């Protein structure tokens, strides 16, 4: 009884000490791969943060690419470009989009709003898809048109047969696609609704299709960092859905994935993979974002635990039964990098080093100091699983002072010539990264 009465006092002590002795962030290299270093979770009065100020690319400035590659701006002046998709005829679709806007529930939410504005994340999205036709490969599109307009925070996009599916934040729309068209004006037909609602905290709906085209897979993010908006609004969220393409019937394929921002099939094994953005505010090195294969019926921990069975004490009531089932992800990408796109390389167009594996864009966040991410990496695969250390491919989005940011990489795609396309939603640019041809 005496011990119990003292417990609140003991719990309070860290409050007054943590501002003074907040440990620095560790080396992100320790947190790549299947067995990342995981420090003890901590709670803060002010979580470690660093908000880079968004400054436009000047004329001639561009991200840095690894040896043997060159980079050029394929399109500029876009409205918050996020997802990229290459159609079979080589036309490139750019989804220009941002959050539908969330409501401020707490004093903290107003501060978060000003943080986003400084970092260039609050810009209004175009709510449209722009088409770039770039057949001659000279780095300058011959044609640029508004392909589909008046969408509602679109994100995922996939073509199956002659139907183009666009995942708005609240529904999948189906559009008839005729090869070669440069504009679709007919309204889309709703295939199925997706969890959205008033709050819609993690609003992006990433999407891909199975190889036979019968099923669509949709990543739906949580409605909070760690259930601070109540459990009711998490119904059907933090999950990957399987949608029957013909009927629109859907079910939860896997759950506990906090924010699965990109889903893609590994080309050799046809295994579904996802990159997932993990939770914030328990330390600069927690929790690592990850790349993982997605098992049918699998539970990946959120909100109750992370990286397998590491319990998150911020969730109440806790669920030890679910923690016991939580699957440990395949490959950690280090903490607060915010992976937003997963693109399997499908061959060695850029470099022999990129023959088998996946490009991953790390959008970067402000929930860590020093910052982490803000680059495109390549993770090698062997026998259908990620292995080894990642290779940085496109860097230099962040200023050398670590306090300014010119761009943030989001969507990735390969164009028909095998060049890597990178959408940059702060620089409002699509970058094209290609191999330097011998003799050019």
């Amino acid at each position, binding site marked *: 009884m005496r011990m119990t009465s003292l417990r609140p006092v003991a719990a*309070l002590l860290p409050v*007054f000490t943590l501002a003074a002795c907040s440990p620095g962030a560790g080396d992100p290299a320790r947190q790549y791969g299947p067995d990342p270093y995981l420090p003890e979770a901590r709670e803060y009065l002010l979580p470690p943060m660093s908000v880079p100020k968004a400054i436009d690319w000047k004329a001639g400035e561009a991200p840095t690419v690894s040896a043997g590659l060159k980079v050029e701006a394929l399109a500029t002046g876009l409205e918050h470009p996020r997802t990229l998709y290459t159609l079979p005829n080589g036309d490139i679709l750019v989804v220009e989009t941002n959050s539908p806007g969330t409501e401020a529930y707490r004093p903290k939410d107003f501060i978060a709003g000003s943080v986003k504005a400084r970092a260039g994340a609050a810009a209004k999205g175009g709510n449209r898809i722009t088409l770039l036709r770039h057949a001659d490969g000279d780095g300058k599109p011959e044609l640029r048109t508004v392909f589909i307009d008046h969408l509602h925070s679109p994100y995922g996009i996939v073509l199956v047969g002659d139907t183009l599916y666009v995942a708005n934040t609240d529904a999948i729309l189906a559009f008839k696609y005729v090869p070669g068209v440069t504009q679709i004006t007919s309204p889309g037909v709703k295939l199925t609704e997706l969890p959205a609602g008033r709050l819609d905290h993690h609003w992006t709906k990433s999407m891909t299709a199975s190889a036979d085209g019968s099923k669509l897979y949709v990543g739906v993010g949580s409605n909070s960092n760690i259930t601070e908006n109540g459990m009711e609004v998490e119904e059907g969220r933090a999950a990957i859905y399987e949608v029957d393409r013909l009927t629109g019937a859907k079910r939860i394929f896997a759950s506990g994935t906090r924010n699965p921002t990109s889903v893609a099939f590994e080309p050799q094994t046809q295994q579904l993979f996802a990159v997932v953005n993990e939770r914030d505010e328990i330390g600069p090195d927690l929790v690592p974002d990850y790349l993982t294969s997605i098992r049918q019926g699998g539970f990946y921990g959120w909100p109750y635990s992370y990286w397998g069975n590491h319990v998150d004490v911020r969730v109440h009531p806790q669920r030890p039964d679910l923690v016991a089932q939580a699957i440990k992800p395949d490959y950690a990408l280090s903490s607060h990098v915010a992976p937003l796109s997963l693109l399997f390389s499908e061959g060695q167009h850029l470099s022999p080093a990129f023959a088998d594996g996946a490009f991953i864009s790390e959008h970067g966040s402000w929930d860590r100091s020093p910052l982490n991410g803000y680059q495109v990496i390549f993770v090698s695969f062997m026998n259908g699983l990620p292995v080894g250390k990642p290779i940085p491919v496109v860097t230099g989005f962040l200023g050398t002072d670590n306090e300014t940011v010119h761009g943030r990489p989001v969507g990735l795609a390969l164009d028909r010539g095998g060049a890597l396309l990178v959408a940059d939603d702060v620089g409002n640019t699509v970058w094209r990264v290609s191999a330097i041809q011998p003799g050019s």
Partner: protein
Amino acid sequence: MLAQNSSDNPASSSDPQGKQMRRPIGLSDAAAPLHGGFIGAGAVLLIAAFGTDYIYYTTALWQWANFSAWLITAGLILMLVAVLLLLIDFATGRAARLKTSSFILVAAAAVLSLVNAFVHSRDAWTSVVPQGIFLSAVSTILLVIAGARGWSLTMSRATGGRP
């Protein structure tokens, strides 16, 4: 007879013209301090945050934790206004001197509540339990003790040195 009776009144010797007797009680050239009401209003909100923290603790319904965060923020803003008015009270001569014990009680509650605002900016359960509700409870005890002595933190000239 009348002259003898008036000499029995002790006031008459120091105030032969009886001016003090003619001034209505409670009026003064010096105005009352401005800050007291804002201390009280801020304290009410900070105390209410303990109530909403307690309900969150028993129900785990997230909106009660949000209420606490807003109550603490608004309570601190009113306390900040009170500090500015307290300075004005001293600058304009409304306040004579500080009631040290009341000041310490309220100042301690305000500092703890400032820390508590940051604790409540955390996400979900641990924004309240255990540190948040503990700070709310301590602030509440301090403010109730202070409130029992009246919300003004100063002796004022208007009341002849009394609170």
